[in-house]
């Protein structure tokens, strides 16, 4: 589709439309990331960018036990993603195939929590799970039993993460599942494929782009999660984001925090690049 009234001189029409956004991304995204990278090479505890660069911060990190926090963050993000994939697939399938005219209103109901700050929603879980809260209070007054609260355990942190990131898995997945043409599925059935075969050979591969986007998005968000461990976990696990925040606040060691952030960015960036490279965004977003 050639743009009408193509002038031929200077930027193409597409580039001209992209220009404001690109400029914004340079000053709002690229420049801040470069600043973080620059800070990570400053001597420990410096607050400016004018000193001679060093690798001290990275050496400090590799000598310290930050890898434990990295491990927690990765492990919890991976668990969150796996659980979400299992929880969301049936719903995504229903949204794309079964719910029909109910789909829009259900989508809306799944969207609303997205717009409420995550810490408010996590706070609701505290009220539900805390001693004398909604769950334990009810158990006590109805059945007279008083189990220990499960609040402030790693399991609850996982619950919080699954809960907060659910829509981010559900929507791309729904998009993916609705990309599978009905004819293909029916053709497979007609050719004698079992339900499991249809799922494995047709359904899953064809909805993969949407599913992968969902997996990637939730993983990235979950690796960067900070509020869940703090609000629900009561510091039983320390994610890497917490280490980074501590370096910037209490420890007042910006270069160390920056170096940790750079390492996190490298992990996340590599993953994102690897996955995004393989997909044609036009096909995912454009096909209706």
């Amino acid at each position: 589709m050639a743009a009408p009234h193509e002038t031929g001189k200077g930027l193409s029409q597409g580039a001209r439309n992209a220009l404001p956004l690109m400029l914004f991304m340079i000053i709002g995204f690229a420049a801040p990331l470069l600043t973080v990278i620059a800070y990570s090479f400053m001597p420990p505890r410096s607050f400016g960018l004018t000193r001679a660069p060093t690798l001290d911060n990275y050496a400090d990190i590799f000598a310290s036990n930050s890898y434990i926090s990295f491990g927690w963050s990765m492990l919890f993000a991976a668990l969150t993603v796996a659980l979400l994939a299992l929880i969301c697939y049936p719903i995504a399938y229903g949204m794309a195939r079964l719910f029909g005219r109910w789909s829009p209103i259900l989508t809306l109901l799944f969207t609303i929590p997205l717009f409420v700050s995550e810490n408010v929603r996590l706070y609701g879980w505290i009220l539900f799970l805390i001693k004398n809260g909604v769950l334990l209070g009810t158990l006590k007054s109805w059945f007279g039993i008083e189990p220990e609260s499960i609040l402030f355990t790693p399991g609850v942190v996982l619950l919080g993460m699954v809960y907060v990131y659910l829509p981010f898995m559900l929507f791309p997945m729904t998009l993916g599942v609705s990309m599978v043409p009905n004819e293909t599925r029916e053709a497979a059935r007609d050719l004698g494929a079992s339900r499991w075969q249809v799922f494995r050979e047709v359904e899953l591969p064809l909805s993969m782009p949407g599913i992968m986007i969902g997996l990637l998005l939730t993983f990235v968000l979950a690796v960067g999660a900070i509020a869940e461990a703090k609000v629900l976990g009561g510091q039983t696990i320390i994610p890497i984001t917490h280490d980074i925040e501590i370096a910037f606040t209490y420890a007042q060691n910006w270069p160390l925090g920056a170096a940790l952030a750079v390492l996190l960015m490298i992990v996340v960036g590599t993953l994102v690049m690897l996955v995004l490279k393989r997909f044609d965004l036009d096909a995912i977003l454009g096909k209706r």
Partner: protein
Amino acid sequence: MTDRGRRALIWAWTLAVLVFLYLPALCILLASLTASRYFLFPIQKWGLDWWRKTFESLEIRQLFANSITIAFCVMVVAVVIAFFGALAFARYNWKGRTVFQKIVLLPIFFPQSVLGLALLLWFNAIGIQTSWMTAIFAHLVWIIPVVTLVISIQVYSFDPALEEAAFDLGASRWQVFREVTLPVLLPGIVSGAFFAFLLSWGNFPLSLFTTGADATIPKYLYAKMVAGYTPGVPVLGTVSTFGAALLLLGGYWLVTLRRRAQS
């Protein structure tokens, strides 16, 4: 399993997950309605005292003003930039398009807490004091790409032949934009605006690092939560939950009305 049984199972599962999703909001609502200083369930004494106290507080009014101002500015700027961004993303075939599409996605696929910190360092490096204004900028970095995607979905279903027809009929570039492009893309722009406002309204990780001495409602709530229980937290939590729900349901209702009026 029969088709019917499977269907029922999927419905049941979906509704169960929705209950799971709304359970905390319900707890917050309950907690905001107790009359006592501490939350004990089952609630002994109900009351609206904490609602009154919360809304009489000048500090909280200031928070509301901050949050709304930030969300409104974010919405306006994001929709304008993202509108043109979406045209570049989905409408025109140009050389840098696939690269551009990936650049747009990067901030979305990026841990927000790290982005907030990066922006803080950047503001500090160029000597800008953080305040509610820098928070607007920070929100935009994340929200413009989201809104671009939202509008892009609408742009994909837009038929460029409409524009060409208008040009052939002698319309000027501005007329085509105002009479054809804008009205056709309006639903996408409106949902983009909703997304922008609400995502900014509820954002915590970016605000945490970039609002400086000013606070937004999510940031204030976080500070209160970490410090200990106060019944003002459930009240504000309820307000922000129901505010978002009302705004979205209202928007959805308007869109359906419009669609009905058109058909």
